[in-house]
């Protein structure tokens, strides 16, 4: 196959504004969107700002929106996109633009600081922590998160409502809370915090976070909903509430 020429319609600009700009770029067999962006950068637009690192879908740096869909540009094959139409690349919409395709994702790092730390139970007498594989399978799914923040980007709760950011930690952080809450060794209880400060209740489970996750983490079904259910345990379940009252009276 010979190289073909594609039209890359790339958002260029910075905090003061910007616009989509068309470039004609060569694309070769087997390439991903990031390859073509790199060729554009090396040949026509040396200063095109693109954030990337591993180019193997492991670090989660090169997140952007390809034809309106949040994706890792390093894992988006060119041959999956309509061949004869311009390919539109825009920065993540939820976060403030720094320049071109690079956004300021510090929101996510600020939210991460608010999560109460992992607090393990004491070790066994032999100095080890004993856990079975079945104890950790569930949490290992959450540990696959590469922090690409595509879930944060697609979540309409902050994507379309900038004013909600202060009160909402976002799907990535709910995955983080889920891994801590379900960790077999952890002894902290973060349910109050989740409901009152981190905005777990604000999620209306439209599952877009799950749809865009490049690691295939079932964010909604395995992290957010189980957390919501744990909050229900503590606050909204009349049966468990009566059970707790009775037990307290007995003791």
């Amino acid at each position, binding site marked *: 196959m010979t190289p073909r020429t594609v039209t890359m319609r790339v958002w260029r600009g910075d905090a003061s504004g910007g616009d989509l700009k068309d470039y004609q770029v060569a694309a070769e067999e087997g390439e991903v969107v990031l390859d073509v962006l790199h060729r554009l950068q090396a040949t026509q637009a040396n200063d095109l700002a693109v954030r990337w690192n591993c*180019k193997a879908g492991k670090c989660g740096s090169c997140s952007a929106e390809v034809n309106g869909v949040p994706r890792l540009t390093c894992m988006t094959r060119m041959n999956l996109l309509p061949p004869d139409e311009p390919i539109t690349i825009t920065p993540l919409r939820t976060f403030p633009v720094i320049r071109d395709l690079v956004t300021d994702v510090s929101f996510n790092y600020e939210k991460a600081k608010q999560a109460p730390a992992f607090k393990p139970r004491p070790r066994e007498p032999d100095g080890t922590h004993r856990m079975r594989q079945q104890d950790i399978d569930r949490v290992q799914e959450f540990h696959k998160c590469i922090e690409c923040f595509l879930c944060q980007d697609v979540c309409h709760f902050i994507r379309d409502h900038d004013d909600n950011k202060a009160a909402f930690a976002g799907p990535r952080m709910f995955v983080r809370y889920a891994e801590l809450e379900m960790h077999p060794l952890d002894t902290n209880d973060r349910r109050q915090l989740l409901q009152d400060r981190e905005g777990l209740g604000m999620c209306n489970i439209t599952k877009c976070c799950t749809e865009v996750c490049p690691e295939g983490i079932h964010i909604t079904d395995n992290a957010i909903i189980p957390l919501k259910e744990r909050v229900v345990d503590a606050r909204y379940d009349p049966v468990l509430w009566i059970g707790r009252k009775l037990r307290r009276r007995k003791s």
Partner: protein
Amino acid sequence: MAEHESHEFDVVVVGAGGAGLRAAIEASAQGARTALVCKSLLGKAHTVMAEGGIAAALGNVYPDDDWRVHFRDTLRGGKLLNNWRMVQIQAQEAPDRVLELEEWGALFDRTEDGRILQRDFGGHRYARLAHVGDRTGLEMIRTLQHHAVHKGIDVFMECTITCLLKDDERIAGAFGYWRESGRFLLFNAPAVVLATGGIGKAYKITSNSWEYTGDGHALALWAGADLIDMECVQFHPTGMVWPPSVRGILVTEGVRGDGGVLRNADGDRFMFGYIPQMFRAETADTEEEADRWYTDKQNARRTPDLLPRDEVARAINTETKEGRGSPHGGVYLDIANRRDAEYIKRRLPSMYHQFLQLADVDITREAMEVGPTCHYMMGGVRVDAETQASTVPGLFAAGEVAGGAHGANRLGGNSLSDLLVFGRRAGLHAAEYARGLTARPTVDPGQIDELARHALRPFDAAGSENPYAIQQDLQECMHALVGIIRTEDELAKALEELAMLQDRASRVRVEGHRQYNPGWHLALDLGPLLAVSECITRAALERRESRGAQTRDDYPTTDPELAKINVVVRQQTGELSTALETRPPLPDDLAKLLEDA
């Protein structure tokens, strides 16, 4: 003075991969005001790419394993060029560091009785690698990252250090710029820990990301520190070879650890023809015995597919050169015919994913095509084994940027334990050093203007060179002339080409302005890239033998006498110089460990 912001710290850690994070955590725990500076976002450093596992003699799978065996394996894998004391420290301390990660929330795969599971890897006598599927690095960096965040360490993300500053002989701080805004910043700090990783971006085919431009090596060199073993650049035997855009991306050694085998175009398991004398006693010479070894380590010898990386990379190189390669210039790595699909998906999920998405290859049904890819720099800053202090007071180094721990060839899995063991030690001793000073060194403000002027030079209209073109030409040059197989003529030619590239780099020009401008960033990265390339080439010329990753076609044998020396590169009067310096000999009690087969 050029406009810049200033920060006061006791310890500045440059680089936020495994070593940098671990160093910062330790320095901060010692009470030092600690800054962690990284070129990327936090948690994106190259550690995230590590797949197979952390080598630590926990003895969970084979109780016979202990630090002595780990010591022996590492030294033999390193072709005896390692700093033996570093190897000893690493082998002894690695298990504690792994258990510590677990204490901080990491979840390694488990054995039946609930302990940390360990897997087989090249050059390791026993199953020794604590792992999480094939994404161990991610687990490690995320655990350290969360831990550091909760400790409240100051992190400077997307910030590049371009120069270390000295007060007389001692470190006084570091100068750099924010990638985001292009503004300059100055760290006033008596201790700096370099944890910047490697140099992979000097080569065309590499598993490394853009960050790996040899910053720490160059910063140390320019600050007057010694670099050792710079000729030892590891080519990982198994990188992807097709499609071209993913060429070099790593295929974990875990594929072979979990049963995958290498075959050439004729379907032969060619590794049986490449067993070197040193490993003959412990390597299987029939396919039957090699296959039996996966389940019976007591009565069978290990498969030659898991020889140390330098041996396998050379073998693949020979096979393809002699016309027995796969269609895209690699060889086949086959696990599909040897393990069932469920097992492969469970043990190697990201390999499965990577090949399916990027190459349309289902590794549970077909063989992968693989070939050597530039992977790791064994050489680096010469450090004290106990403290990780360089030859410049106040300058410390840990992880890939430090030299000595891995000798002429690193074993898989030893890198992650290196990061933890020596990261911790570097942070600890940097904090102690800073605490022990009676007077803080001060930065001469006159230097700032010069550094700022130098950094902004690519915006001046004078030049016309494209930084991307220079980097590409550099990578071509290093790959062709200072690659896996080297000769004196080619190395000399490389030096000439490097001089020309250096000249072109002085005329580099970038468009646009200082805000998040990758062209400018690359122009500034060319400095370290060219510096380390020259170091590698000069050191490779000096070592007139073949040892580990240094393979000289004109000196094909290993010279036992040269095991006793390090090639040292330094730049103390402006000019780069090399020296052959004798290493401390291996004590008898440790030498005995090597003999046990």
